[in-house]
């Protein structure tokens, strides 16, 4: 075990791997061992981790509700303006000329839903965030390049300095780092 560039009280153990296979295997073992507060870091999405790392994904629901809200906003706005606020009589045609409201309704549906997808996804990640304890480990920079990290947080109720290290070492990481809080 090596101590990273960080100091302060222990935040987590981080096992560094050079490929996704060991990362997925290790993450699965960690989950099966009963850990809850762990996270896998990879330079690109590894879909297998979705089933392993706990979490929920409310993005689709957010997008659906935002889309409905967009459609409603557009329809009500156009109808209200065309009928109540600024009615224009065009050759005696009905004020509630709903087929003409379809394009803008579609556009606002897409606009609201897209904004929800964007801000929802980034908001759920906790962004914008200027600092996070994993950045205390200098070597963590390679998580955005060619290395894969599995972190088990020290505040996990199952965390044990000896046993957790043993579990991670089973998967022969390149390094096992101690990540400090500062």
């Amino acid at each position: 075990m090596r101590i990273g560039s960080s100091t302060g009280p222990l935040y987590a153990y981080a096992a560094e791997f050079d490929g996704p296979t060991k990362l997925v295997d290790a993450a699965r073992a960690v989950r099966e061992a009963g850990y809850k507060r762990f996270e896998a870091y990879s330079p690109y999405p590894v879909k297998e981790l979705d089933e392993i790392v706990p979490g929920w994904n409310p993005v689709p629901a957010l997008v659906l509700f935002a889309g409905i809200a967009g459609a409603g906003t557009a329809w009500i706005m156009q109808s209200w303006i065309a009928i109540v606020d600024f009615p224009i009589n065009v050759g005696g045609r009905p004020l509630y000329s709903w087929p003409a409201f379809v394009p803008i309704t579609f556009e606002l549906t897409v606009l609201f839903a897209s904004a929800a997808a964007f801000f929802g996804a980034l908001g759920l990640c906790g962004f914008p965030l200027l600092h996070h304890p994993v950045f205390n480990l200098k070597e963590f920079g390679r998580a955005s390049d060619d290395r894969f990290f599995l972190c088990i947080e020290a505040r996990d109720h199952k965390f044990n300095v000896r046993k957790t290290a043993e579990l991670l070492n089973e998967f022969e990481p390149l390094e096992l780092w101690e990540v400090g809080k500062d």
Partner: protein
Amino acid sequence: MTTVAEKQLQTPRRPEPGTSLPVIAGAESFGTLTEQITSVVLTRPTPPFWYYTFAVGMAALIMFVVSVIYLLYRGVGVFGIEIPVAWSFAITNFVWWIGIGHAGTLISAILLLLNQGWRNSINRFAEAMTIFAVMCAGLFPLLHLGRPWLFYWLLPYPNTMHVQPQFRSPLVWDVFAVSTYATVSLLFWYLGMVPDLASLRDRAKNRFAYGFYGVLCLGWRGASRHWRYHETASLLLAGLATPLVLSVHTVVSFDFTIAILPGWHSTIFPPYFVAGAIYSGFAMVLILAIPLRKVYHLENLVTERHLNNCAKVMLATGLILAYTYAIEPFTSWYSGDTFEMAVVHNRAVGPHSWTFWVTLSCNVFIPQLLWFRKWRTDPKRLFLVSFVILYGMWLERYMIIITSLHRDFLPSSWSNFIASPWDVSVLVGSIGLFVVCFLLFVRFLPMISIFEMRELLPFSRPGGGVEK
């Protein structure tokens, strides 16, 4: 007991069709990909080509600024527009630019939904192209307003004048379609770039770059939770952008079709315009990709396979366009409408007939060279054909607009259109604006999606073998 994930791992990856040409040429690893793409921004000296094109683009941009200032000072009369040709270059440029943007969305959204892995190396700069093209497009209707500083009157908002936009007008639909398109393209592009900005942050050599990319990447760590939200949002945005891109050019074509003018009042316009948009957009993608891959030595990432595929899309959309060119005169003749037939006749032999024949040559005859593999994979030839198509597509919109407008129902209102120098300077200037924005993007942002390229490597999947 095997889990679903394990079963998926055991299933061999389906070979992609047409794999005779590789998506990534040469043996790459995660590290070399990151290095190659980030070094363009962080370490490698900016090539002289960048400075030359930037200087030319900047000169054109200055011309644009000067023209716009003069336009704001004197009014839209500086353009060659008159009655009945009250729309000319401005609307032509608008349709042309927004059409160019559509290829970027097609590559980033539609090809993502269709699971086309080869798109990963061209989607980032194609999307950047979309954003800058839509930006240029959006300026033209505003500059054409007469009083551009009152542009916000286009939007519905509570005001003391007690007037509101007319929602039965396609011009108002256009405001919503184009602004939505610009916003969604920007969000999609930025969301896709966040993980790559983190790569730039982690490889930054100085504090300024570290801070700049660190703030832009919002604190990305590549955690599996991040990827989960990121992937879902990308997929949903792709699903939303796909009908959006079709709707935008459909609404643009409504600007014409909902008028009763002969030559415009036609139901074939929406598919006709969408096909033409994608056609010209792919031409622009190639015009950007061919020099970029050469100057930045990206031939291993943007391979002949990409050129070939883009050329095939152009060929296909070009044939759709050829079909509409053929069916338009037929419909006019079949309708028995004198005015419709007169427009077709006027386009072919009237005062602007050269636009008709040059359009036909540029968009239908010359691109047939793309049936030959050599013309699809040889960068120089393909660049030439793309250039011809891009010019042809501008001329097509010009032809549609001018020939229909200058011969109205009433012969007493017939007139002609002669472009003024300011028409030309604003068009050329907008190209300068585009070039400058695009070069700044290439210089300061990752022009190829790094994380999506990593996914294409053979050992990127767990159990996929190679681990050093």
